[in-house]
């Protein structure tokens, strides 16, 4: 579903290199965790996949379901089924949740040649999906993320994921700033959305989230490159030994 080949990315204006030859292959139904220390390029990877401005692709390719992802605008990527759960969800004063979701859901539906949802069906769907992550349905009249608590913002991201029904969901540090109860709710939501047709890339600094969202593969990102891959045991090992261990290993290898 997602194939990243030898990806090199730098920051557009200053030229700082962030990703240095990253390779990753994700198939439908799989859950991949990407772990790494601060500054290793985890969030840059998420931003580049979603199509955020400000990055220069120096080399490499990203294909999504056989299409060149780099050729697509951010909104096209989303309509094609790529979803990014933001690390820092943006507040949109004056834009109501219901208007926002209606626009989003119907944009995706139109792309899939589906009719727009009726007002009744849309409300029903909102109610049902909000329950996934224990969000109060009254949130529909609130402005997007405005005045939401940290936990509500993260749950809201998973709620949107459920509403948009993507093929590939990238969760960018969805666990950051969550207490253990909120973490469990978010993880439960994600687990309910796992399916043979959908893949997840879970980006996280800590192993904790992976106790709840159990990955099929764990990759360690250091200095913009995946330096080690394994199964869920790798995450536990990392938790125990710390990232310095990887760096030392790498040091010995080179």
């Amino acid at each position, binding site marked *: 579903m997602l194939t990243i080949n030898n990806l090199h990315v730098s920051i557009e204006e200053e030229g700082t290199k962030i990703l240095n030859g990253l390779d990753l292959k994700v198939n439908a139904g799989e859950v991949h965790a990407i772990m790494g220390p601060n500054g290793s390029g985890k969030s840059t990877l998420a931003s580049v996949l*979603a*199509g*955020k*401005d400000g990055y220069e692709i120096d080399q490499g390719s990203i294909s999504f379901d056989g299409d060149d992802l780099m050729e697509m*605008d*951010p*909104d096209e*990527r*989303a*309509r094609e089924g790529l*979803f*990014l759960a*933001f690390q820092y*969800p*943006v507040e*949109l*004063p*004056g*834009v109501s949740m219901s*208007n*926002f979701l209606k*626009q*989003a859901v119907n*944009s*995706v539906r139109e*792309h899939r040649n589906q009719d727009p949802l009726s007002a009744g069906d849309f409300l029903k769907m909102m109610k049902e999906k909000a329950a996934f992550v224990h969000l109060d349905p009254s949130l529909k009249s609130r*402005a997007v993320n405005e005045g939401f608590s940290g936990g509500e913002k993260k749950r809201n991201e998973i709620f*949107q994921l459920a509403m*948009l029904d993507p093929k590939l969901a990238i969760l960018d540090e969805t666990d950051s700033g969550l207490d253990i109860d909120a973490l469990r709710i978010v993880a439960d939501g994600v687990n309910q959305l796992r399916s043979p047709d959908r893949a997840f890339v879970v980006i996280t600094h800590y192993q904790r989230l992976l106790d709840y969202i159990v990955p099929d593969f764990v990759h360690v990102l250091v200095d913009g490159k995946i330096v080690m891959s394994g199964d869920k045991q790798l995450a536990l090992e990392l938790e125990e030994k710390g990232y310095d261990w990887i760096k030392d290993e790498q040091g010995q290898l080179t």
Partner: protein
Amino acid sequence: MDTSKETMESRFAETFGADLAVENGNSWISDRRRAMESFQANGFPKRKSESYKYTPVSKRLNDAFPAAQDIETLKTDSAFASLDGIHLSTRNGLLRHGNQISGLPAGLTIASLKKTYDGNPEFLSGILSSALDLERDPFSALAAASASDGVFIHVESGVHIDETIVIHHDEVDSAGFVQPRLLIVAEKGASVNMLEHFGQSSVAPAFENRIAEALVEKGARVDHVLVYERNENATFVNGLHVTQADESHFSTNTITLGGGLVRNNLHFLPDGEECETHLNGLYIARGNMHVDNHTIVDHAKPNCVSNELFKGIVTDKATGVFNGKVLVRQDAQKINAYQTSKSIVLDRNASIYAKPELEIYADDVKCSHGATTGELDDEALFYLRARGINYETARMMLLEAFARDVVDLIELEGVREYLYSRLHEILLDN
């Protein structure tokens, strides 16, 4: 040439003050004479005049004297005709329905200012011009000097008018200089709400230099909305001067969607304790439009609240100006005064000048002001696009949300709905 500048004021004085020669004990005439003297002494704003620094209104005065045969009556759009309420239409700011409107609720009078004055000079002599500070604005002084008639809206003590008074300024001269006057008096404990609409016109009408005064007596409440939508070459100087007594409430929402050059002079004097004053405004300036909101809240007495929110969107080569001054005098303790101005610039050729001013002489007050100017928020745009919403729709959603914030403060649902759809139309085109 300086000589032409010199003659400009005298030419205006001659033309628009022609009927001031004979005073005959008429206090209104003597008020007008004083206003004319003040206007002549101060003159039109010069290039260096601080309060008109960014807004070259005087440049547009040359068109004020067309040949009489070139003037026709221009009919403009009356978009609010189906709104529930008491409707009046004006021609050049004067009542079209004759001198007095009949069938009004008890305690409400809407009439010609001149007829009212002539019928009872003593009643109006103490009121007319009492809210005016002639030195503050030469255009208001000129309008006060020139206007020989206007509209008078009077709500008697304790009377609540639930219906909205809808004033359609829907006939105006096609050229020249029009200076109407409006006086609103809400007596003790009375309440009234009104909407003034300067409808869309296909061509630019006369230069409209209007002066409106409101006297809000003890415990009274006036809610005012103005929607201005004239042609993109029209000129409008809108002087609104409000004096409030104890425990009174005044709100205005000034929405500027049209005009080539618009200057809103909104002057408030909460001259009593426990007053509440709300000034909100929105403008969308495009093409070569120039919109200037100039506000003064002069807190003269203690224990009052004022709240000000102005928002603007500028694009193309348009200019937006905001100058908001809050003055808290020495005896005006326990004042809460808040002021916010926010603008979005969509084009690098568009400009915004924002100047918030606080002048505080009392020591126990809460005042704040904030002015932000920027482009559309990239992070917000990306967030919407990351959910599949295309760029155009995402941009519209953000701009509409920004502008609706002000519209949402209008209590009249029909007006809100109309403005939502107008905002959508205008923003879609730009």
